[in-house]
């Protein structure tokens, strides 16, 4: 199972990023092997639609769960279509802290706001 975290720099010590579509990087952790990989968010400079493109990007790395800050309606819809579960990153500071919080079940799953997405 793979999990992605919005991060400013590389690795587990990096600070997390408060944006999803325009985050600098995604740090992706394979929970089975504990291999940590940081990929650049190539969608961040898109004039529009960065959220959807960012979801497409992490889906290529077979991410199952994305830890995210607030998500826009398009990114939310895209997560659903790519079957990626989302959990809220809360106020943790580093990627490592977020990962620990996730492991101990402290991160809440983001439930879809019904009826809000207008496409």
């Amino acid at each position, binding site marked *: 199972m793979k999990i992605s975290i919005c991060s400013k720099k590389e690795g587990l010590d990096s600070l997390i990023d408060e944006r999803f579509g325009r985050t600098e990087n995604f740090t992706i952790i394979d929970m089975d092997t504990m291999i940590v990989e940081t990929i650049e968010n190539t969608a961040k400079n898109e004039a529009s*639609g960065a959220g959807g493109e960012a979801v497409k990007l992490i*889906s290529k790395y077979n991410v199952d769960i994305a830890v995210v800050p607030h998500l826009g309606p398009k990114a939310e*819809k895209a997560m659903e279509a790519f079957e990626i579960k989302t959990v809220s990153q809360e106020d943790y500071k580093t990627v490592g802290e977020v990962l620990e919080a996730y492991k101990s079940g402290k991160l809440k799953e983001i439930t879809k706001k019904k009826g809000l997405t207008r*496409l």
Partner: protein
Amino acid sequence: MKIAVLSGKGGTGKTTVTSNFAVNIKHSIGIDSDVEEPNLHIFMDMKNSASEPVYTLYPSIDKELCNLCGKCGDFCNYHAILPAKNQVIIFRESCHDCGGCKLVCPNGAITYKKREIGKIFKGRSKYNTELHYGLLNIGEMSGVKIIDQLKKYSDLDGKTIFIDSPPGTSCATVAAVEDVDYAVIVSEPTPFGVSDMKMVVEMLREMKIPLGLIINKAGLGDEEIYHYCEDENIEILGEIPFDKKIAELYADGKIFSDSLPEYQDFFSDIYKKIAEGRRSL
């Protein structure tokens, strides 16, 4: 002849200038292309307007034919179409109706559906000038399609068209001034006025559209605008003084040259200057 009236920002008197032109130049049509906030029709007291819907298209996917190859998503510049795991999602509002995804789809899975994005209203002002304006529906992102349609609808036929453009230098402004014969910039003689105007001048020069300036509220502010025009070789077509009477008429929603006849020649002279200048080009 098509003349666009534009300004760096809202509230500089663009609609006032457009309406004064439209009532003083015979056989002219006034067009309000500020589809997000049209107000020319209010100023000119439009009667008997009829409306027509304006549509845009967006893709619709035949699930039977689509194999989720991803080509449409890679092609779309606006990220309006996104092939995912078991479905292709469409962000209708982001679609610019370019028609490209249908061309790149190898399986013929894409067709288009139409949806209304706004309306065009046509009628006459109480001064009997023909008026057209567009109105973008709330929540829509781009009015460019409505602006293009507005300009297509207005039959030239020897008439002069005055286009009240959206403020600034957005895509909508570009659409409004595209292929006009001349652009009249309206600006106030203040430092802010000059800085907002610079971007408009740059845009127009890039588009190779001849331009001139009407200074509104002349007497207010400072000399900077005159220096700027001299440096940049911009013709000052005329100046509307900062005058209490004019301000009161504006505030009442009146066309000021209607009550102050000395300004009727002011607008027709400027128009003549533009028309002649163009002939000599």
